[in-house]
């Protein structure tokens, strides 16, 4: 069954996930051609609605849509507010009138992309909603891991940082579990939720987490802008306790672990400068793969198909 929208990872079954990951590889291969564009979405329109600032995800979607020959319009919502019910409706009416085929939404309110999806025939892609989901990030993370481990079953991923507020942690751990990987969380007690999926180990101590023998270290961004409450004493303290310091980088290198980070990185907080040159850092792979995965998603969704 074709899908109209991509709102989260939880509602995808394993076959759909595997299909999207398989389909991302031929898109990535296009990047090596001199002509990186294909005509698959020629004449289709893509509207981006980013109510939260984002450079990486926004431009990644834009590049993906353009490489599929779609027309991209960036809806300027920097100064408008969609929190009131009325303005959501107005926005939807506008995009209906524009006969938009795809809408890419980021908003601080969990569930808002789903609301838009129900009210329009356009395909809606959630580019991050509150602490709920960020499905294309999860897909690109899974794709990046599968490039290194074609059969990732049983591989262990430790996700470090602010789990509580992180839609990346939520979506990425969901997809990794669905693909048969083991996931654990590490972070300050105040930022690692005590409730949640039972089969996810929780650590508050870096050494204990390393003793669990992970294959991949996934660092979350410390979200400076989202911390209205202090969850840890200071950034320096965070770096000392949970960051990849130069000493820890040596250990990571000795163990041959892969390092991932959804970007943008806060140098000196989640990781030290030296990590940027670490040979098993997958951070740049994640950026490149993000475009391929988003192309696969745009190509896969069918505007006008029955929604959920």
């Amino acid at each position: 069954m074709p899908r109209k929208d991509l709102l989260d990872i939880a509602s995808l079954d394993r076959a759909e996930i595997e299909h999207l990951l398989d389909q991302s590889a031929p898109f990535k291969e296009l990047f090596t051609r001199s002509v990186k564009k294909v005509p698959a979405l020629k004449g289709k329109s893509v509207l981006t609605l980013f109510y939260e600032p984002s450079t990486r995800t926004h431009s990644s979607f834009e590049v993906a849509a353009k490489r599929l020959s779609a027309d991209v319009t960036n809806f300027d919502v920097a100064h408008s507010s969609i929190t009131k019910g009325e303005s959501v409706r107005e926005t939807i009416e506008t995009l209906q009138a524009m006969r938009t085929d795809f809408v890419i939404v980021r908003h601080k309110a969990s569930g808002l992309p789903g609301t838009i999806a129900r009210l329009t025939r356009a395909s809606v892609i959630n580019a991050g909603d509150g602490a709920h989901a960020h499905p294309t990030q999860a897909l690109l993370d899974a794709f990046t891991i599968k490039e290194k481990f074609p059969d990732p079953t049983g591989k262990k991923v430790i996700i470090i940082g602010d789990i509580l507020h992180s839609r990346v942690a939520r979506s990425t751990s969901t997809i990794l579990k669905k693909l048969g990987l083991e996931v654990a969380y590490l972070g300050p007690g105040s930022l690692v939720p005590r409730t949640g999926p039972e089969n996810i180990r929780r650590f508050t101590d870096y050494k204990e987490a390393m003793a669990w023998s992970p294959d991949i270290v996934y660092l979350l961004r410390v979200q400076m802008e989202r911390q209205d409450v202090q969850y840890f004493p200071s950034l320096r303290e965070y770096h000392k306790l949970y960051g990849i310091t130069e000493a820890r980088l040596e250990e990571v290198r000795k163990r041959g672990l892969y390092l991932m980070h959804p970007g943008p990185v806060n140098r000196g907080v989640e990781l030290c400068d030296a990590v940027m040159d670490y040979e098993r850092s997958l951070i740049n792979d994640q950026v490149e793969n993000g475009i391929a995965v988003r192309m696969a998603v745009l190509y896969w969704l069918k505007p006008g198909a029955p929604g959920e």
Partner: protein
Amino acid sequence: MEDQKLSADDIAEGVRRLAEAIRERNGDSPIALVGIRSRGDEVAERVLNLLSEEDRELAFGVLDISLYRDDFEHLHENPAIQETDIPFPVEGAHIILVDDVLFTGRTIRAALDALSDYGRPGKVELAVLIDRGHREMPIQPDYVGIVLDTRRLDHVWVSLEGTDGCDEVRISRKETP
């Protein structure tokens, strides 16, 4: 109406005819065979095997044209994409596109577009195992293995060993509506 069939021998004969025609017309000049997925790649491989027996140099590639189709609007689900592999420089090359069945010509239109995104070939020709007629585009083959007389609504099912497990062509006759 009853189904018509072509045997493995008929297919082998068709492939042989293609190889012979390509050899005759091109002598020893360098050519590249590019098979269109799926099944065109297998036909191209067989032609390549026959031609390379004579110890001549041939380039080989496979092309997936899914992203260049013109019928997305009419499809329930978009076709799965497979990898394209063109390991030689397209620029200036003499390329022979190879497909299993030539019907409306739309696949070949898409293949020409796809190919041009890899470079500007010196010359492009078309070789097909089966020409079943009913073109919807101004496209004609340069090399043909088998000519099949069909009606517009007939279905031509090609099975090939490597893709489907056996060599066989079935034509199911549809009554004209």
